[in-house]
């Protein structure tokens, strides 16, 4: 529907930067103690094993050092982060029942409109809790479950969640995974039964409104054998002058010959520390496709990981990162090829501008079981000025014979000859540069659903504005 496109095309900065007073929200004290963790758990009426998991995670968190590589996170003081902020509402399944200011937030972000036009289901989280969750009846009739994960802990799949929860990403993974294990709140649970194919995507949108707060949602998706799902994740926050933290976790289980596409457009505000962890395990003949756009955050560490654990399992990663002024985005992906004849395809683009730092970091491991596997890694970086920085750190660890690996990397600038050519046909300089950058990003944007591709092009346009002189 062309009208919908116009709606997205007309966004301006205020689309992300508006914010509401958070005084009517219930906030826990800033900082991190066993009491705070107990309080979060108590509010959620969750099973006993979960409280134990939280307290154990907190211990691990306290015993682990902060990583000594990657961008600095010195500006993040956990004593100042409010780990739990409850919006003044319970979860609804009708937008009309969602409080006005929260509903307005999601309307301005275009979520209900998108739900009406092309989504099979939507979950919306505001600060620490889901405020809306709904799925079309047709999908429910297929046996698909899409709900808040906390709600699901009391439902039919409680045991399955217990069995899987934080087994792919364990609290010992790194300090912020441990933090997540201790204070996680909100997030979605998706279960797609065997042989079920959902034609329309499900989408969860995460909005962090409260100042100085953290968001720690947990997304758990199980796609059974021969099933197919496209899941979209969006996130944004208004800008504050104090640090906010996002340390979510995404665990994806992809069955035999199943297919999961996981698309993300991340546009956190530029005071955000985005220390997010995502991981998929793929069984025989299954495939996971990551499509990832990283635009926001002050500091970002993001490396979605795929474990190819069955013969002929596949993964592809298509990503773009745009680091502007004051941003240090360390992004990429990890793959472990742990079965014969698996294949990996990684294609990333990164753009840095106005002093922004963009680092591509990847790790591809072929274990001794990976005979006959193939991996290709390609990353292209574009630096828009002399102040910006781009680095490429691809690692490959091949531990068996007969594995085909390839890697290519280019780092470049916008050619003056290209700008001159476009200008010689009447296109102003800023538009010419934006056109070149959009073209550079095209391999990623064409992987996104139309509405998101348009949004991404607009985000690039916003970033490019005022880039001249």
């Amino acid at each position: 529907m062309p009208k919908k496109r116009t709606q997205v095309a007309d966004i301006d900065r205020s689309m992300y930067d508006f914010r509401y007073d958070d005084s009517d929200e219930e906030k826990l004290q800033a900082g991190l103690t066993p009491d705070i963790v107990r309080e979060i758990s108590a509010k959620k009426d969750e099973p006993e094993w979960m409280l134990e998991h939280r307290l154990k995670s907190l211990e691990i968190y306290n015993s682990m050092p902060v990583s000594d590589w990657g961008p600095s996170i010195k500006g993040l003081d956990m004593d100042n982060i409010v780990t739990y902020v409850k919006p003044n509402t319970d979860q609804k399944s009708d937008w009309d029942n969602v409080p006005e200011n929260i509903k307005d937030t999601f309307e301005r972000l275009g979520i209900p409109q998108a739900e009406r036009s092309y989504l099979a289901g939507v979950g919306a989280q505001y600060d620490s809790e889901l405020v809306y969750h709904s799925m079309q009846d047709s999908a429910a009739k297929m046996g698909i479950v899409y709900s808040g994960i906390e709600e699901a802990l009391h439902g039919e799949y409680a045991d399955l969640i217990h069995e899987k929860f934080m087994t792919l990403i364990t609290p010992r993974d790194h300090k912020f995974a441990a933090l997540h294990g201790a204070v996680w709140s909100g997030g979605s649970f998706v279960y797609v039964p065997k042989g079920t194919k959902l034609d329309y995507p499900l989408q969860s949108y995460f909005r962090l409104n409260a100042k100085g707060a953290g968001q720690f949602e947990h997304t758990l998706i199980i796609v059974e054998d021969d099933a197919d799902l496209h899941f979209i994740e969006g996130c944004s926050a208004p800008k504050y002058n104090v640090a906010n933290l996002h340390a979510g976790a995404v665990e994806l289980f992809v069955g035999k010959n199943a297919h999961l596409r996981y698309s993300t457009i991340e546009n956190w505000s530029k005071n955000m520390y985005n220390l997010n962890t995502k991981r998929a395990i793929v069984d025989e003949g299954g495939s996971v496709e990551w499509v990832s756009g990283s635009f926001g955050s002050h500091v970002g560490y993001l490396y979605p990981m795929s474990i190819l654990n069955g013969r002929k399992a596949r993964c592809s990663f298509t990503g773009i990162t745009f680091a502007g002024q004051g941003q240090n985005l360390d992004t990429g992906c990890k793959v472990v090829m742990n079965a014969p004849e698996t294949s990996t395809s990684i294609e990333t683009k990164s753009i840095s501008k106005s002093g922004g730092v963009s680092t591509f970091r990847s790790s591809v491991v072929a274990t001794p079981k990976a005979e006959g596997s193939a991996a290709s890694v390609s990353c292209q970086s574009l630096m828009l000025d002399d102040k910006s920085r781009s680095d490429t750190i691809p690692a490959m660890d091949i531990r068996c014979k007969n594995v085909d690996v390839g890697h290519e990397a280019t780092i470049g600038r916008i050619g003056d000859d290209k700008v001159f050519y476009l200008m010689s046909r009447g296109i102003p300089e800023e538009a010419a540069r934006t056109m070149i950058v959009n073209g550079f990003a095209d391999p990623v944007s064409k992987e996104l659903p139309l509405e998101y591709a348009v949004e991404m092009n607009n985000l690039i346009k916003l970033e490019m504005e005022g880039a001249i002189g």
Partner: protein
Amino acid sequence: MTRDALLSVRDLSASVDEKTILHHVDLDVAPGEVHVLMGPNGAGKSTLGHVAMGDPTYTVTGGSIVFDGNDITELSTDKRSRAGLFLSFQAPVEIPGVPLSSFLRSTLDERPDMKMKNKQFRKTIKELACELNMDQAYLDRELGVGFSGGEKKKVEMLQLLLLKPKLAILDETDSGLDVDALSVVSQGMDAYRERCDGTLLIITHNTRILEHLDVDRVHVMVRGHIVAEGDASMISDIDENGFEQFIGADDASEAHE
């Protein structure tokens, strides 16, 4: 200056990396005329085309360029284009990820008087592609990426016919070497002349491209100086005797400085 010239280059000097390429160049082109700028390799012919279009690679160190009554010496390239000046490129660039049709659309969107509805736009570019024997599939391909020399030339001519500039500078320094490219350019020039009563400044060192054209004036450039000017009869003279006769003439003109 000539009062009714469309393009009037006066005493123009330009340099790149502090090396002077153009020396006190004077050149006038009246509306509707066909001019040819000839000269040996490396004479600065292409540079003159690029400087006229405002290529930031070059620094104008003296003189002026007046187009359609306005001094454009300081004007940005995009504004020169919208004022009706066109430069076809010897080696058009590649812009990955930008479909040719969206690029063409953008060139029109910047011109309020040329805006058209999408349907009409598609029809127009398809017709032009057809006229230039260009596979329509190219309209949806990434601009310049993987295009042959002949195809790139077609894209340049398509833009010439789409934008209908008042003056087109065709930098055809090397295209005389490629028979296909040559015929594409000839066809483009004919259509442009016929349809828009277009004004042309053709940059070349090869006379074959001029065979079917009614040339009004010939300018010869050697080492950044205009050393000779005359009517179309100069072309056959150059064809027979080459540029040797002019070499050294630039020393004389330098002596005048």
